[in-house]
């Protein structure tokens, strides 16, 4: 059951080979056995999960099941979940029990899925290693001395250690794709606006996008079918007709034009990752795809532009944490201003404070044009690069991350080195394009390598098709960490 694809789990539930309560219990037991070592979950509430599982069993008995009814799903602790503590990895929300559900949670609940728990993450999703969490770093199940990637590292570790059959994440600069790559999983960041941001704690609103994480492209398709959908409560939610993202999974790849950006194979890419990606490209050629060399000339500017835009938006979004309406409030203050200063100094961790300071500076009087406006112009150039590229190709393929997972602590003291982890993933966020990562081999220290696939707007079904066909002729996605 631990390695079973969602489609088969769904069939087993429908045929009463196993109940949702039994399945949920199986994963809860695994969490209680493994979580102390891996720290993938911040909150687990067996009673709540099992109550939902029993309700799913009744629904299945009545013949009213949907594809995910009874399937336990681990949710990144950034999606507010009614009656569940939702911390966003921060001391600021240590005691925040949400009075409402995020749209994504509502949709999973409506589909009959079970909330399996809330997964650990970088504080307020700011990080690429899941080390900045107030609740301690997440360990990579492939080797616990290494990071699982971030910010959705708890979801990645939960999946990699088979503590959950499916999970959610969010991706502002690579936070679904990079942990998927570093933990040997499949993860998809949809087109901006496809999944509602309602109830997803805001980091950088023009970039944030929720998406599924799973063991295969096929599982991602089933999860995206539930997650995607218009929601009037998110002002940037897109009124896009409902799609079945699994519809094209088996389409042949003959004639597929794969764009390979030369900028993503240059300096900074480690040899082991480059080699696995090259081999994956050869597999695609065997499947009938055509390789086309493309250019994304402004790619190298994506990290500088991102570290203006994302902190700017974060400094505005996180101004709501003031110790008045919810969350942490410092004790012992002279006056209101002192309460704000102390609350925010004590409630936010170092990385979050640093990003708020960057954002505050670039938006401050006299600097707006030099930083924020400049970054928005570069954002346009990056989006234009993609528009040009998609005239020549159907998908863009390259490495997800320049290296395999690094050791816990290795980059914690050097923010710039940490930021450069996301050099290949950030451009898709800036342009609002869908991107995904799938496993394509192993590199240094026998750690997983991720293959990055970027599609045009709303090309999710095609990207999932590309990934699924690759997973039909390779078995990287079926490998699991030894000794767990």
């Amino acid at each position, binding site marked *: 059951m631990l390695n079973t694809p969602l489609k088969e789990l769904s069939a087993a539930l429908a045929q009463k080979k196993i109940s949702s309560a039994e399945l949920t219990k199986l994963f809860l037991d695994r969490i209680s056995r493994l979580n102390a070592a891996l720290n993938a979950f911040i909150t687990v509430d067996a009673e709540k999960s099992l109550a939902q599982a029993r309700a799913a069993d009744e629904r299945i008995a009545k013949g009213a099941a949907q594809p995910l009814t009874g399937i336990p799903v681990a949710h990144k602790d950034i999606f507010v979940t009614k009656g569940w503590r939702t911390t966003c990895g921060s001391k600021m929300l240590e005691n925040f029990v949400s*009075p409402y559900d995020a749209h994504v949670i509502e949709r999973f609940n409506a589909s009959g899925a079970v909330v399996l728990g809330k997964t650990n993450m970088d504080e307020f999703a700011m990080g690429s290693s899941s080390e900045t969490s107030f609740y301690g770093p997440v360990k990579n199940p492939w080797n616990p001395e290494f990071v699982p990637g971030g910010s959705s590292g708890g979801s990645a570790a939960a999946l990699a250690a088979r503590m959950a059959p499916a999970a959610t994440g969010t991706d502002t600069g690579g936070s679904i794709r990079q942990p998927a790559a570093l933990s040997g999983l499949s993860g998809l960041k949809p087109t901006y606006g496809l999944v509602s941001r309602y109830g997803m704690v805001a980091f950088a609103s023009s970039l944030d996008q929720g998406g599924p994480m799973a063991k295969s492209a096929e599982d991602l398709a089933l999860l995206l079918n539930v997650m995607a959908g218009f929601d009037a409560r998110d002002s940037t939610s897109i009124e896009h007709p409902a799609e079945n993202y699994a519809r094209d999974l088996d389409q042949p790849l003959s004639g597929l034009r794969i764009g390979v950006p030369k900028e993503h194979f240059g300096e900074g890419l480690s040899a082991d990752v480059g080699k696995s990606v090259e081999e994956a490209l050869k597999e695609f050629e065997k499947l009938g795809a055509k390789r086309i060399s493309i250019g994304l000339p402004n790619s190298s*500017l994506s990290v*500088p532009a991102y570290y203006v835009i994302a902190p700017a938006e974060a400094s505005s979004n996180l101004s709501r944490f003031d110790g008045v309406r919810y969350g942490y409030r410092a004790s012992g203050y002279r006056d209101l201003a002192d309460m704000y200063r*102390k609350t925010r100094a004590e409630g936010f961790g170092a990385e979050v404070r640093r990003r708020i300071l960057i954002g505050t500076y670039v938006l401050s009087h006299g600097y707006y044009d030099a930083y924020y406006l400049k970054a928005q*112009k570069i954002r346009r150039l990056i989006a234009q690069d993609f528009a040009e590229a998609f005239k020549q190709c159907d998908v863009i393929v390259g490495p997800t991350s320049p290296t395999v997972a690094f050791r816990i602590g290795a980059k914690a003291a050097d923010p710039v080195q940490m930021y450069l982890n996301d050099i290949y993933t950030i451009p898709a966020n800036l*342009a609002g394009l869908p991107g995904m990562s799938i496993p394509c081999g192993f590199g240094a220290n026998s750690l997983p390598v991720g293959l990055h696939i970027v599609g045009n707007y709303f090309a999710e079904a095609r990207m999932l098709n590309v990934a699924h066909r690759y997973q039909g002729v390779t078995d990287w996605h079926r490998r699991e960490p030894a000794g767990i």
Partner: protein
Amino acid sequence: MPLALEEVRRIAELARIGISDAEARAVRAQLNDIFELIGQMQKVDTDGIEPMTHAQGSASRLREDAVTEGDRREQFQAVAPQVERGLYLVPKVIE
């Protein structure tokens, strides 16, 4: 142009984040590294490029001017640090 220590303190005050002198010194070094990275943007000529504020360029959606939310004050105030008779309590601001 590196940030001066005084500037770090000013930004922290604008952001309402308390900062000690030792922290200000440590964060100043990191911010300067980050701004060196950000400074790469200045290499490109962006004259005449329209700024991109958002991934989807669409205009804001309009809706009927009707009440869509019920009163959930009790639920929402249950998670507040300090409330009294339906009001959020903060330190006195007017003498």
